[in-house]
């Protein structure tokens, strides 16, 4: 019997997916369905903003940024 589940489809790189999977392991409160390839998963609609914020913070910390000055 087919079912329809509400959620948000997330499309990302494998590295980001790994981070999301790690978050989910803490309390299992993000993922609705892990879609098994390394780029897609479905998460709860309510968690989207939270996830984006958390990812943004984490990536800002971990990803090296080239130095850039605002002057000419």
């Amino acid at each position, binding site marked *: 019997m087919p079912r329809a589940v509400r959620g948000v*489809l997330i499309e990302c790189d494998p590295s980001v997916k790994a981070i999301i999977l790690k978050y989910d392991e803490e309390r299992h409160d993000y993922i609705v369905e892990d879609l098994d390839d390394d780029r897609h998963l479905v998460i709860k609609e309510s968690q989207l903003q939270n996830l984006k914020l958390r990812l943004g913070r984490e990536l800002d910390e971990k990803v090296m940024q080239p130095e850039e000055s605002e002057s000419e």
Partner: protein
Amino acid sequence: MAAAPSRPFDYLESLPGTVFFKLYQQPSTALAIFRRMLPDLAKCFVMALLYLKDPIPAVDLEIWVKSESLKERDSALSILGRLHILSNTTTADNVRAYMVTNPFAASLRQALTGAEQTQSFGVLSRTSDEGSTSIGSLDEYARRQWEGVLGYMVGTSGLGIQRDANLSKGVKQLLQAGHLVEIRDRRVEITQDGFAFVLQDVGTQVWHILILYVESAEAIGMDSVEVLSFIFLLSSLELGKSYEKRHLTSNQLRTLTDLADFGIVYQSSPEAGQFYPTRLATTLTSDSSALSNPISGTLSGPGGGSNQPGSGFIIIETNYRLYAYTSSPLQISLIALFTTLKYRFPNLVTGKITRQSIRRAIEMGITADQIISYLATHAHPQMRKHNVSRSTSNQTGIPPSVLPPTVVDQIRLWQLERDRVKATAGFLFKDFVSLAEYEAPCRYAEEIGVLIWKSDRKRMFFVTRHEQVAAFLRNRK
């Protein structure tokens, strides 16, 4: 502007069928929806079916479209269905067939041929007070009011702009209700939505405001259908002509007064017997953002002086430097949202687009596309000329871009750097028993253009909207 039609469309689509029934009673509404909301192919379908007495068998309509264009056909049919314009019926010998639904068909026919009774397209004022209000002064009025609204929103973000205090309370309440601004400590602060709003082109902004207005209409005791039809009526009026007010209902009069505050209509005084639609109203149902150029041009142009179509003031070089020939505080503060400003002269500001400045903007909720479309809309004629001459001489396949491609790409890349995930809200269909059971709805979802992702192996697929797919599944049982 691709985003332009989507908002009114989304709003309309969310309305129940009975509302459509009431809306389509008015020929002006039927015409406006036909013109504004439908893709080309859907328009062809409607027109082809409009004067047919009997429903057309579905097969006949379907073979009319080339087999390469199945996707376009199905998305056209799907939109027509969602807007309750086309309905499925059966012909006398029980063949699946399509027909244009009735209040819509009758109203559209009436719009095309004319009707005696209705005042659906407004009644021209007979008292000829020609010359009292020219098109130029209507544009000026619309520009002043609309810039006032934007200035009220942006000017409060601490950039030190003097603003006109002639905004009515209703306008301010509406902006608040739409979460475009917030009142904190009795000071007005622009929200993320507000930032996104001010960078959109004027046509989209007007629709955004109008839909907020319609949504709030119920709260102040007006029928939203009546307000909506009145807005469509306004959109079918002619610029520079005055219209009688005595045929309007009291609610419509009330709406008229409110819209005058935004500069969408003009009346010399609330007691006046006539009103004039401004360009903001008459271009509501045009697809072409280029048409609103006279307004956006004057809105943006230095001091609103020039009324030339397509007049812009921004020059961007391939080294990300930006020169804006404007002295309008509104425009300067808009540019400052995503640029690091460097020098300011009486008629010119210069600055540079940097990674930081773009990220700052993106954190405020502005998207790269909004920045790019803002820059493209307001590009200086010199840039247009330069780029057009260049693009006709070399590659013909790529549509000519006004902005330097490297800058456009880089702005998008800076956004994507932040944006590592692409999120699409929707519905996951799963637990199909067999591959056969999975395949049919999956293919159907793809045809109507809602399929985002599928996996044949796991027998799952993801769609943006589930209603039609669910109906499809039920029908197959």
